[in-house]
């Protein structure tokens, strides 16, 4: 209702607010130039939130993925259609060594696989765009190749992240990547498996989002 819009805006403008200049205090979040410190802080943050972190070099990646899936006795994995490590993911889950594992490729509208995603899939596997060391955080930019629900609906989320993409803090990330120029439909910061302390302040994991988060840290640095 444009009358409501105008009424609200004119009420606000009647107060004649004097616009304040940009503040001179600068934000000082955690920052480090020490690669080892940065890496460790990232790992510590995620571990403290009950995520599993597995470090691997590039070559061993598809074995690591395979081992996770096998050791957790997952039988159905959902994956996207592209990404830097897409072939490793495919290789790990569709090899002759893992006949028991079925894959579901998210290559159609969600309406065509919604029930399967909710009820049958054990884990969704995605790439990450970046990581934040300060808070132990994964940064996901879901897109056509890896849709939003892939990292959300299945009870386990397996996330692949390159060491070289981990930066110190959130502010630094959005500034160096100039997010303000090109925001995607959705960005999600993930810092652990789902949790809640709503019942008598007692922490419990696996509320609505994935109850397991497995982070594969690819040591490319």
């Amino acid at each position: 209702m444009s009358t409501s819009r105008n009424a609200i805006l004119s009420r606000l403008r009647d107060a004649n607010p004097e616009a304040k200049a940009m503040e001179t205090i600068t934000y000082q979040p955690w920052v480090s130039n020490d690669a080892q410190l940065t890496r460790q802080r990232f790992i510590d943050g995620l571990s403290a939130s009950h995520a599993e972190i597995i470090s691997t070099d590039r070559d061993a990646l598809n074995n690591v993925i395979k081992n996770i899936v096998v050791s957790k006795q997952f039988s159905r994995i959902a994956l996207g259609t592209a990404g830097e490590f897409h072939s490793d993911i495919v290789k790990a889950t569709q090899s002759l060594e893992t006949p028991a594992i079925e894959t579901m490729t998210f290559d159609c509208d969600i309406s065509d696989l919604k029930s399967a995603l909710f009820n049958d899939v054990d884990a969704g596997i995605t790439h990450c765009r970046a990581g934040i060391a300060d808070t132990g955080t994964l940064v996901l930019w879901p897109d056509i190749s890896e849709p939003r629900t892939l990292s959300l609906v299945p009870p386990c989320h397996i996330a692949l992240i390159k060491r070289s993409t981990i930066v110190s803090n959130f502010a630094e990330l959005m500034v160096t990547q100039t997010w303000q120029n090109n925001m995607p439909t959705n960005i999600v910061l993930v810092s652990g498996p789902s949790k809640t302390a709503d019942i008598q302040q007692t922490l419990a994991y696996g509320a609505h989002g994935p109850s397991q988060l497995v982070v594969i840290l690819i040591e490319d640095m």
Partner: protein
Amino acid sequence: MSQSNNGVHIQELAPEHFHDQAKAALADPQLRQNFRGAMDYLQDKRKTAFSNPAEEKHIRDLSEAIRQRCLSKLPDLLEQLETNCTNNGIQVHWAQNAEEANAIIAAISQRHNAKSIVKGKSMVSEEIELNHEMAKLGIECLESDMGEYIVQLDGDKPSHIIMPAIHKNKQEVSDTFEKNLDNFTPTLDVDELIQTGRSRLRQKFHDADIGLSGVNFAVAETGTLCLVENEGNGRMCTTVPNVHIAITGIEKVVEFLTDVPPLYSALTRSATGQAITTYFNMISSPRRDGELDGPEEVHLVLLDNGRSQAFRDEEMRKTLQCIRCGACMNHCPVYTRIGGHAYGTVYPGPIGKIISPHMMGLEKTKDLITASSLCGACGEVCPVRIPIPEMLQRLRNEAKNPPKPDMPAMRGQEAAASKAESLAMKGFAFAASHPSIYHMGTWSATKMKALMPSNLGPWTQCRTAPKPASKTLHQLIKARKQGEKS
């Protein structure tokens, strides 16, 4: 339907009945214990998250400055937000009050023949009584935040803005599930209780026609809605259903994307002592061409409902700096002892006291603004430095006096005005500025101390009456001086 406050029906709680509601809460030992335990826990969590006083000061100063800058430009930022959201494909609606907001949401729902709305956590949706209004139209609103879910099962209302079921212990949660859910085995195991919630709600996310959420920060620069959560139900509600409706108060706008990280850090640490929440969700548009999931329609409802009244002058505007962390109520000695329901308002505790008069009028909320000793524990922890005791002082003045010159009347202006009290205060002011009269009074009090009544009404219900000294200091000093002279 839930009983709370020793038999007062939950739906009848109102700020006008604050005295009775508070009295009943104070007499409830289980409530007192639950809240004391919960507040101790939350205070401790916050303390650990702000272990460095210099850093704490820095982030609070910065957060205050950011919120004040953004508020100072609010009308322009709202227009910028609208433009950028609209360019992104988000449909923006403006609602002056609850009625308009509900009408907007009803219209969207009816256009989609929606039978159910699954809700992430939104205090603004409580403010407009969305569930109740939609139910009248045959649209079911399902709470998915664990705390809100528990509260909804019970026909109850949230008692805290971050942890809605804080007034319940795990036994009471188990009882709630047992009473309302089929095939539930009572348990005190919190993991099992949470798994119960998870499994019962999962299908709702799958089936819902519409997902509704609040907004923690709305970024004008990019037309982005930011949502803070731990559970994942927010992501579910804003990703799975085909329609997403976000509702927010108009004060939640920030100017730049870079305003978000410090405010987000201040919020999570102040609310639950977390460095970061499990998820931070940034939504800038509905599903774009080629994308395979996500809502095809995203709506943003901007709600005024009295916020523009708080905006009117620079002092009162500080009320709107709030980022809804709940730290104020976690540290409030009054809230700790009476719990959230006793206020009878959607927003309880210190922040509730200073915004409810703008949303509901001073006539209904005049007892809330005096229900504070002005101890300042709230202001001491507010991440955006709202001077809550000063806001209360200001509201007390507005409740007793006409508006300042050149200011329009507030809703409920002079609602607590009392001729008798006003005269007494004028008398006090006169006496205090005319020493001889004042000292006559104090002299008489000392002379009549034996006649001091032992029953001073409310004071003496738990204290003995104070006894004046036999001579005032003034008299003693005077006597000393005269003694020195002679």
